[in-house]
């Protein structure tokens, strides 16, 4: 006997249709679906009420509800944003969204290399295109984000060198540092190496003091958190290799059309975040992490991630794909595998591949150039405002730079609130994370910022600061 509420028909639940339900119950030999829950003892049965809102059964009602909530968000398209710091506003080519909204790519998961041949190929091609960008032979299927990639790269270095200390050199993203610290707990020690306050580069003297025979890796970011291009990579890699340590460098892949990849200055493991390659910001949800190394067994065998490789089939001339060295993963070996692997950011990997295919070598050079020019223009304009300094104006930087407001007498918070009134999201407030910089912010300029946007920022700042 079906109760009244059992007759509600849900568009997402086909067998909620009473006749189907009854037919299936009859076939199983039960009178009530409750009988199927017999294994759950009475004392574990939830008999209370879940205090959830009244459902919005019609799609129209749901749409109205969601639009109402989402309308409370002010976006970086409706305003002009100069925020960066690990998540960036770049132009997303239409083809990127077209492909990552394809039903097949959107709703596939862990199928075999047969019926999911396309997914394997798309990810193999992503690995391959990233490999060209970073000029290395091995790249993994994406992990959660750049921070995870950095943390895993450091654990990999520790396993490869069999040492338990890592040096994190220079100005690193504070959130990335928190992720790394938790991930390397409890067995790997994290030692911080200063950045030079004048040049923005890694403080080599401090590095020399702190490196030892226990060092598994020296890690630095290029560009650094402050946007500085690190120029001492060659020195750092020599220092690392002399002590039997590896050099791990974190990069912003969209810079690699104009800036040399770290493999050219001695990096052993290269990592980074792919969000800048055709993926929307998504409030910080657009991240994906990559790890790249040379094709040497001792490196390959330390990756926790899936590594898709190309192989043959039984038909001559036909190829397929599969997992390389699957036995090293936690899928195969549980706690004996390398770290752990699971669902992470595959669709973003496919998207980054589409982006790189659209851009090609010339596009990557063009975008790097445009970003360099716009950022340099912006830095010049801002530093010309009374009281405003760009400390590293003459140093090489990519996309981001610190703007020092200390001489203006106004706090970044005040300034950003005033900018917001004019539809501008000011640069990230650094005063809490880096108190030594005082009232400073991190400004980010990409190809999406027009000269008009930059002039509007400069003009508005000028107005705010001369009030």
């Amino acid at each position, binding site marked *: 006997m079906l109760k009244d509420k059992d007759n509600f028909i849900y568009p997402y639940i086909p067998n909620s249709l009473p006749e189907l339900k009854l037919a299936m119950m009859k076939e199983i030999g039960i009178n009530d679906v409750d009988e199927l829950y017999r*294994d*759950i003892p009475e004392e574990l049965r939830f008999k209370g009420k879940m205090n959830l809102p009244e459902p919005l059964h019609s799609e129209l009602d749901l749409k109205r509800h969601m639009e109402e909530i989402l309308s409370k968000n002010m976006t*970086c398209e409706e305003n002009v944003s100069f925020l960066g710091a690990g998540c960036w506003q770049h132009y997303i080519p239409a083809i990127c969204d077209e492909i990552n909204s394809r039903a097949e790519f959107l709703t596939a998961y862990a199928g075999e290399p047969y019926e999911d041949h396309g997914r394997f190929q798309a990810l193999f091609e992503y690995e391959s295109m990233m490999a060209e960008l970073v000029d290395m032979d091995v790249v993994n299927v994406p992990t959660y984000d750049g921070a995870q990639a950095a943390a895993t790269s450091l654990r990999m270095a520790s396993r490869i060198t069999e040492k338990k200390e890592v040096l994190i050199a220079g100005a690193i993203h504070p959130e990335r540092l928190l992720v790394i610290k938790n991930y390397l707990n409890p067995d790997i020690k994290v030692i911080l190496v200063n950045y030079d306050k004048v040049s923005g580069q890694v403080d080599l003297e401090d590095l020399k003091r702190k490196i030892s025979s226990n060092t598994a890796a020296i890690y630095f970011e290029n560009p650094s958190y402050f946007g500085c291009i690190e120029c001492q990579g060659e020195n750092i890699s020599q220092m690392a290799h002399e002590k039997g340590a590896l050099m791990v460098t974190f990069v912003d892949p969209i810079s690699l*059309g104009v800036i040399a990849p770290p493999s050219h200055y001695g990096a052993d493991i290269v990592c980074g975040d792919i969000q800048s390659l055709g993926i929307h910001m998504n409030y910080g949800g657009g991240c994906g992490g990559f790890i790249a190394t040379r094709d040497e067994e001792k490196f390959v065998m330390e990756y926790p991630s899936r590594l898709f490789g190309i192989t043959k089939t039984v038909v001559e001339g036909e190829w397929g794909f599969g997992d390389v060295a699957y036995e090293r993963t936690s899928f195969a070996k549980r*706690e004996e595998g390398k770290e752990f692997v699971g669902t992470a950011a595959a*669709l973003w990997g496919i998207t980054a591949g589409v982006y790189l*295919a659209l851009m090609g070598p010339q596009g990557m050079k063009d975008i790097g150039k445009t970003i360099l020019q716009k950022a340099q223009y912006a830095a010049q304009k801002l530093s010309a405002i009374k009281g405003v300094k760009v400390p590293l104006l003459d140093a090489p930087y990519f996309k981001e730079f610190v703007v020092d407001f200390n001489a203006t007498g106004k706090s970044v918070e005040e300034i950003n609130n005033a900018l917001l009134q004019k539809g501008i999201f000011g640069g990230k407030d650094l005063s809490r994370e880096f108190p030594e910089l005082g009232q400073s912010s991190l400004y980010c300029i990409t190809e999406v910022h027009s000269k008009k946007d930059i002039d509007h920022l400069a003009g508005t700042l000028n107005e705010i600061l001369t009030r």
Partner: protein
Amino acid sequence: MLENKKAKLRNFHQAKWDEPIIFELSTRGARGILVPEAEEEIRTEVGDGISRIPEHLRRKEPPALPELFQAQVLRHYLHLSQATLGADLNIEIGQGTCTMKYSPKINESFATSTKVTELHPFQTEDTVQGALEILYKTDLFLREISGLSRFVFQPGGGSHGAFTIASMIRAYHELRGESGKRDEIITTIFSHPSNAAAAAVNGFKVITLYPDKDGYPDVDALKKAVSDRTAGLMITNPEDHGLFNSKIAEFTRIVHEAGGLCSYDQANANGILGMTRALEGGFDFCFFNLHKTFSSPHGCGGPAVGAVGVRKEFEQYLPVPLVDFDGEKYFLNYDVKNTIGKVRMFYGVLPVVVRAYAWIMSLGEEGLKEVARIAVLNSNYLMRNVSKIRGASIPYDAPGKHRLEQVRYSWEKLAEDTGVTTEDVQCRMCDFGMHYWTSHHPWIIPEPFTLEPTESYSKDELDEYVAALKQVSEEAYTDPDKVKNAPYNSCIHKIDPLLLDDPEKWAITWRSYLKKHGKDIDA
């Protein structure tokens, strides 16, 4: 009146494009998209921009990316998407434990709205009240569903959720000065391997319990395994074979008495929504896969969210920030006394949470219960029909015994009788446009296959799937070679794993392949 339809097998063939690797489609000089130049005044003022970079750091050789025109890129990727199945296209009930349910398309419109995609995580809170409201309210929903106190969405998947919990367990014992002593985490062989692996990364030794003769985790084995070294228990329930451990409250009590904490891997929550909760099971922590139970699509393997929930006393360990509400505004709260810090940049994958929120709002309490009940009805209906297939068996089965969200079956008899293995059947199922998954490793159940119908597929679709399995079984008994040499109607033929495990031969990238093998795949 219901038609008594006999399920008809499709004469299926998957799209087979013989699609070249994208590098082979390259034409020197082709452009897929053009990038805006900086305005002339900017160029005049700052020059080419590149000369500011020290010479030794300028890219000399451009990256050897392929060069294609725009429509060619589109066509290439559309070919690849056609060579991919997914829950939208397919009766995807074969990916047991993955919960391949319908991801409502209306939710895509919210997830891809510019009001979600064009938000920067460091915008001031006033400007993202909609995003914070969704994060906050979805936390409240999951509290109702689990009985626990507070949820975060930072972890990027279920495994990451398990990792986050293991970090919090470590932090808890560290704070009590017991981290040196409490270095063991207990799990079961039928729980997801990531529970074990994530515990190991956090520095724990892993003790794995094997099932008793009825397929349940062995209580006696647990009693022997606990000691003053026990840091915690990380377990799934129902386990991957579909059996609900009715003694779970005893399990958690035993671990608590030994001084450990209990974590609930709720990847298999779909069948028990509203029926039983983490709190009453005695759990201190749990995680839900928003891309499984809560309908966010799987994306070929992410992006995803492992929503981690804790009992009140463990809120102090959560990764920052939390999303709070002061009565007027939503805000980010970094004031978490003994936080483990962060497991991921920013706050989690907002579009995934948006979809989960919308899905829950469309169903409400009664809807969620119906999801669970129909998913379990479907699972048992399927089990009934699969049990009739020659060569198939249901390990740990007993008369009147029911399973929950999924069932792990065995082709042991089929393999004994015909020599056809589960992996052979898996390949032949591709010829009907069907997929199934075997099991995590190690295979406790021989020749396994794990089916999870969820609530999304109709009776007819379940019947079609069973008809395909039945067909393959019949073939195994009459023409085993046909099954062993499958697939025939898929995108490619049987793979030769020759190039996958040998360091001299493997090729994870196209450039690596060319270096080792040249252009000829058969060389």
